[in-house]
């Protein structure tokens, strides 16, 4: 129930990877035939990943994951544009984007963090107003990892295009959940992570549209066309490619299945537990994301009780020496104080079933009632 954090590797993905640990272990840069086989696998994988998102193979750079892809996209377009030093992003981005931006601020760049509305949608008007002559990049995530809100990427792309600004989106949470096509979305760069889509950890990709002026952030033996040096993680890359193809093939069935479970869970919780709210957008929402806030109870306590029942979830509430701190995403949604500390994220995966949902609903009810009995805020 915590698939937005990570997912188990699909058996088909494992099967595809195994030979590349043992039989085909060559270095793709070697000229002998062992290296040749590895190089072939790499080029096949590149084609598969490209196909899954409607890109050209040469537009795919393999990385160590979503975090590196975000870093490469943002830091990579900076050096070419020394006179252009302004970046636009949003307040609800993943730390991989936010912390990269704040590092760039410390290096003299300027960053505008566009706010979101109460449902987590980026304020498009403010975004356009913040465009400057020296804006080099807009980076807005495709969907948020905590509250699941899907952003109007196409609209933002139009703004970027109109002002001749590069546009990057972090699609780590959307691949395999909703359609992701680089031409449909009209983006210049797009980040992908393997471990969120039933692939192995520590591998990802960045799509870079042909013609984008970008420099590497890792230098060395000029692997990945010079964009990302370091001997390629062939088993990982093969796994990512297999996971991408599977995600693509199963997209319709998987997202329908997850959405049915999502909607059933939400409506049943609202039926049986009073004083609860759904965080994020009611419709523009990842099919696998449920983010609820329960009045009178605290997230970490709910998480622990659910964990004891064998249910893994996450919360936007963290306890730090005598005070509770809500996540940067929840804080930016302007929730009432009553709701801000009692949030839970349940993120579904394709292997979950309706029986799992029954169990979660029952367990959640017990958990919330038990904690409300203890709470001085609740009248129960």
């Amino acid at each position: 129930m915590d698939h937005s954090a990570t997912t188990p590797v699909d058996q088909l993905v494992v099967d595809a990877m195994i030979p590349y640990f043992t039989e085909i272990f060559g270095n793709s840069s070697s000229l002998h035939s062992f290296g040749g086989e590895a190089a072939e696998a790499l080029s096949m994988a590149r084609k598969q990943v490209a196909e899954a998102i409607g890109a050209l193979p040469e537009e795919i750079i393999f990385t160590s994951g979503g975090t590196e892809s975000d870093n490469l996209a943002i830091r990579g377009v900076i050096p070419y544009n020394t006179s252009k030093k302004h970046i636009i992003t949003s307040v609800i981005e993943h730390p991989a984007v936010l912390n990269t931006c704040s590092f760039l601020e410390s290096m003299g760049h300027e960053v505008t963090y566009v706010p979101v509305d109460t449902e987590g949608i980026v304020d498009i008007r403010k975004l356009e107003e913040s465009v400057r002559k020296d804006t080099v990049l807009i980076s807005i995530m495709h969907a948020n990892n905590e509250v699941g809100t899907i952003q109007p990427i196409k609209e933002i792309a139009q703004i970027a295009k109109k002002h001749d600004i590069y546009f990057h989106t972090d699609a780590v949470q959307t691949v395999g959940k909703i359609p992701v096509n680089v031409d449909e979305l009209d983006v210049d760069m797009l980040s992908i992570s393997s471990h969120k889509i039933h692939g192995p950890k520590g591998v990802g990709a960045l799509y870079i549209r042909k013609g984008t002026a970008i420099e590497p952030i890792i230098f060395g033996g000029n692997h990945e066309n010079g964009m990302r040096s370091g001997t390629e993680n062939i088993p990982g890359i093969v796994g990512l490619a297999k996971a991408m193809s599977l995600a693509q093939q199963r997209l319709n069935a998987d997202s329908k299945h997850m959405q049915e479970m999502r909607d059933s869970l939400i409506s049943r919780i609202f039926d049986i537990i009073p004083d609860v709210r759904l965080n994020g957008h009611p419709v523009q929402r990842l099919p696998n994301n449920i983010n609820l806030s329960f009045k009178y109870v605290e997230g970490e306590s709910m998480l622990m009780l659910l964990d004891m029942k064998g249910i893994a979830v996450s919360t936007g509430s963290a306890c730090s020496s005598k005070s509770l701190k809500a996540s940067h995403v929840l804080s930016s949604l302007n929730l009432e104080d009553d709701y801000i500390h009692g949030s839970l994220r349940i993120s579904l995966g394709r292997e979950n079933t309706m029986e799992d949902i029954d169990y979660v609903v029952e367990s959640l009810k017990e958990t919330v009632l038990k904690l409300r009995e203890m709470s001085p805020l609740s009248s129960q």
Partner: protein
Amino acid sequence: MIEEFSNPHNVGVIENADGVGEIGSTVDGDIINISIKVTNNILEDVKFKTFGCVVAISTSSAVTRLAKGKTVEEALSLSNDDILTALDGLPEGKDRCSGFALDALKLAIEDYQKKNK
């Protein structure tokens, strides 16, 4: 600690309590309410209601357990270490919030003493 959290002792509010201590606010997060019943200088009953994280709930429970049956003076001299011992320690970095429940108990006793001057 986990045991104390999942099966907390003395949850509730004492009706017509002799002293009540409450600490925290929804803005900061954790809220701990402790009420006491005192007879012949002994804390005959101690109950808590807590909104907060695992540590807040388990330390509240431990405080009520330790204070119950003690004299007012004994209860006032309970220390952070007593709580930590009762809970078999707290996760790293979280032991700083353990004093919170104790503060609520001391407020409840002060409240009792003020009323009975």
